């Protein structure tokens, strides 16, 4: 076999070493878990997750508003991004023509330098 | 069955003319398809010419000709269509002896019995290799494909809102 070390130009990375470390850490975690209190009664309210007193959530967190903070912070950028992403075919062709013009200009200038 | 066909569609003169015309149109379409590599045309154009016959029959005999055998004929038409296109597929593999699409029939005199030197000639069929065979396969597929399209357009428009002019012509006659 050609060995398992991925030698990149600036160093190397050994996946098997990483796996070995991962398994060792899993073993340690399992040991810590197994030393826990074993005489609890399964299936009673003892096994329910503790929501600091109030009722457990009925529905999941709606997936769309998990990162609302991020959208607030980048507000102006997202406003511009939403405006740029119209679903209209004409704007698709317009951006393609713009790309073509930019590449043509860059290549001709590049060619002269 | 006989009486039902005769009362719809255009006048009997037109029906007779369409029946007579069908033969020359078919031969011309077959000619265009077969001589694809010599004269302009080829499989697609020849098939389209032959497909006009179905359109002519539909116009002359009215739509009810189709209504009677509605769904049964379509599946058989589709099988003929796919037979045609599959022969085209097989023809790609035929010349596997040398390489794909190798024109090993050209001027080998086997199929068209004429060996033709390279250069201008008075239009022998042999110069085409397997192209005439491919044109025939594509022609068959296009004939059935286009006539299916015409039939489906007419049949489906019946449920649609437009009233086909052919219908009114027939009724006024009785």
């Amino acid at each position, binding site marked *: 076999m050609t060995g398992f070390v991925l030698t990149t130009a600036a160093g190397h990375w050994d996946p098997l070493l990483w796996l070995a470390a991962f398994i060792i850490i899993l073993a340690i975690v399992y040991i810590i878990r197994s030393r826990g209190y074993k005489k609890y009664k399964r299936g009673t309210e003892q096994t329910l997750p503790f929501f600091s007193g109030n009722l457990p959530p009925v529905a999941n967190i709606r997936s769309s508003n998990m990162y609302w903070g991020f959208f607030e912070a980048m507000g102006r950028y997202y406003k511009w991004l939403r405006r740029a*992403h*119209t*679903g*209209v075919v*004409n704007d698709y062709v317009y951006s393609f*023509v713009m790309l073509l013009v930019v590449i043509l200009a860059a290549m001709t200038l590049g060619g002269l330098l | 069955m006989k009486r039902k066909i005769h009362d719809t569609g255009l006048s009997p003169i037109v029906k007779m003319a369409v029946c007579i015309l069908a033969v020359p149109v078919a031969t011309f379409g077959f000619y265009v398809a077969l001589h694809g590599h*010599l004269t302009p045309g080829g499989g*697609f154009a020849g098939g389209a010419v032959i497909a006009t016959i179905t359109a002519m029959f539909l116009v002359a005999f009215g739509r009810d000709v189709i209504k009677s055998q509605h769904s049964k004929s379509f599946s058989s038409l589709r099988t003929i269509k796919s037979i045609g296109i599959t022969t085209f597929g097989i023809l790609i593999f035929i010349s596997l002896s040398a390489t794909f699409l190798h024109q090993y029939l050209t001027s080998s005199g086997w199929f068209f019995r004429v060996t033709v030197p390279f250069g*201008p000639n008075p239009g022998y069929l042999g110069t085409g290799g397997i192209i005439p065979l491919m044109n025939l396969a594509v022609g068959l597929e296009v004939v059935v494909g286009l006539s299916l399209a015409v039939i489906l357009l007419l049949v489906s428009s019946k449920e649609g809102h437009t009233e086909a002019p052919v219908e009114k012509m027939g009724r006024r006659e009785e």
Partner: protein
Amino acid sequence: MISTPFMAVVVLVLFGLSAMVFKRNLIKIVMAVHVMGSGVNLFLISLGYRAGSTAPIFTNAPKLEMALPVPQALTLTSIVINIAVVALMLTFAALIYEHYGTLDARKRRLLE
């Protein structure tokens, strides 16, 4: 002086592109694609032009100086492909009209 077919090609292609960018109606966009396609085909044909030559068909050819057959073969294929593309786009436009009730490119349901 650039010979006239190449100028016609530039006009056709630019016309097609500009119609696609500015026209709102879906059918007009399909027509613009077809116009651009024929512009590119004209360009391919005019590449193979030789002064004073006949069509490259061997059947009792009057003389041996013939126009280049290869661009004409390319154009044939490109025309057939153009038909298929335009036919497909017209069926989509018809079905969009059936579902949306309008052919305006701005009325769309697929948002950003």
